């Protein structure tokens, strides 16, 4: 009788303890990586390679996502707003939605799928093939060499990527607005910039930097702690993408609350 009552509680307790252990492990991992960012030696070449990987090679997928999102947003807004004769608000809705929310979140989700998975796979493969142990025996701290440059690169590259995504998303909305919905180009653009405030852009870029950090952190942490050969690396890759996607959505709410709650 007692076991029927306590078994589910024990399972919940184990789950909570496991979650706390994981959160603690990720936090310590992040702190150690950050501490390496301020202590030499610095690996500029590795930082630059990771920066290019995030900022330049992710650009096509992020750009396509942004353009189509802007286009769909304009169309959907028109369909809804036409019922209230509020079509003139479309430009401002598109730009504010993109800059505050959709630009950073969708870009981050795309980058999580591409870069988070890539970081986890590369570092995970290095773990299971003893390359990380080899780094240690070659007088190189793996956290400093593998993790710190990637964290810094993703944190700095994401805002740039999101800035481009914002511009392309607005351009997508403008294309639909002028070519399909009959807006005058100058009026659409004026409406776009009239309603856009500096806080909107800054909050989006801060979100992007936080999301970039989370993507790199989860990718490197999952890879660094992978074990068990190819299956372990596959599991690490999946975990990196799932964990960073969930954290991006959760942190998006938290950051929005902080920026716009008043």
């Amino acid at each position: 009788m007692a076991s029927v009552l306590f078994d589910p509680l024990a399972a919940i307790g184990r789950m909570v303890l496991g979650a706390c252990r994981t959160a603690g492990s990720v936090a310590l991992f992040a702190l150690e990586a950050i501490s390496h960012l301020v202590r030499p030696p610095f690996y500029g070449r590795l930082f630059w390679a990771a920066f290019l990987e995030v900022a330049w090679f992710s650009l096509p997928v992020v750009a396509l996502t942004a353009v189509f999102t802007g286009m769909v947003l304009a169309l959907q807004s028109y369909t809804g707003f036409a019922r209230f004769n509020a079509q003139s608000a479309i430009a401002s809705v598109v730009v504010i939605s993109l800059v505050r929310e959709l630009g950073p979140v969708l870009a981050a989700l795309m980058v999580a799928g591409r870069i988070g998975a890539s970081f986890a796979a590369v570092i995970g493969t290095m773990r299971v093939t003893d390359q990380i142990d080899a780094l240690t025996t070659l007088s190189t701290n793996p956290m400093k060499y593998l993790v710190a440059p990637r964290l810094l690169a993703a944190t700095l590259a994401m805002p740039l990527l999101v800035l481009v995504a914002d511009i392309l998303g607005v351009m997508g909305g403008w294309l639909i607005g002028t070519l399909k919905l009959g807006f005058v180009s100058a009026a659409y653009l004026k409406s776009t910039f009239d309603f856009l405030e500096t806080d909107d852009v800054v909050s989006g870029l801060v979100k992007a930097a936080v999301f970039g950090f989370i993507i790199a952190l989860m990718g490197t942490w999952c890879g660094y702690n992978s074990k068990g050969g190819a299956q372990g690396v596959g599991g690490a890759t999946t975990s990196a993408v799932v964990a960073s996607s969930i954290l991006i959505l959760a942190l998006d709410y938290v950051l929005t609350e902080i920026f716009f709650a008043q």
Partner: protein
Amino acid sequence: MSEPTPKIRMRGVRKSFGGKVVLDGVDLDVAAGQGLVILGGSGSGKSVTIKCILGLIEPDEGVIEIDGVDVLKLPRREREALGDRIGMLFQNGALFDSLPVWENVCFKLLAQGRITRAKARDKAAEVLAQVGLAATVGDLSPAELSGGMQKRVGLARAIAAQPDIIFFDEPTTGLDPIMGAVIDGLIVDCVQKLGATAVSITHDMASARRIGTTAAMIYHGRIVWTGPAESLGRSGNAMVDQFANGQRDGPIQMELRK
């Protein structure tokens, strides 16, 4: 007259993973310039033993000394500095596949700032020549190399910084007998030229006799025998002789599930 300080000294080293005891009080001395081969079945704790010495795994208890210094009590930075004097050839080579061979070979020298990138290629060519590889191999990626070549590059990387202790993890695994003998010959040559202390782990008895001056047998997490490597197979110790001669019956019982 007191005995000379061993290059490596382990006393009562224990390590468990979860509930599984892997090292159960390892006691081991390796004299300077000695070539020690550690033998033992799969899962007996050979790799964990050398990973503890290398600092890749932290033992639960015990003492590990290098040149009389207890490395487990050293501050992290000093322990990392100690690693500068150690080289390691991993079982699968563990070459960095994102870097060309020349950069793999000179990785430690570059990491320590002992050489510039401009000079590293020439240095890599020089070390590659010591392991019988042409300078042109330096421009290849590790993925383009055969298993034997990867072992040679791994050996070149291990000796490039002229360490005074070198570890070899299964140096002939996955190689044909001739290539195995070639790698063993290179190991012996390189270790002799450097005057280094070598610790190897292997299942290959022919290799053990070629590269070792002394052998130690680990069983159930303890060193159960040490003696001359040339006596393997006729040591008088039933466990060692069973293992060295590959006999099914004897004191070592394989844990097989039925």
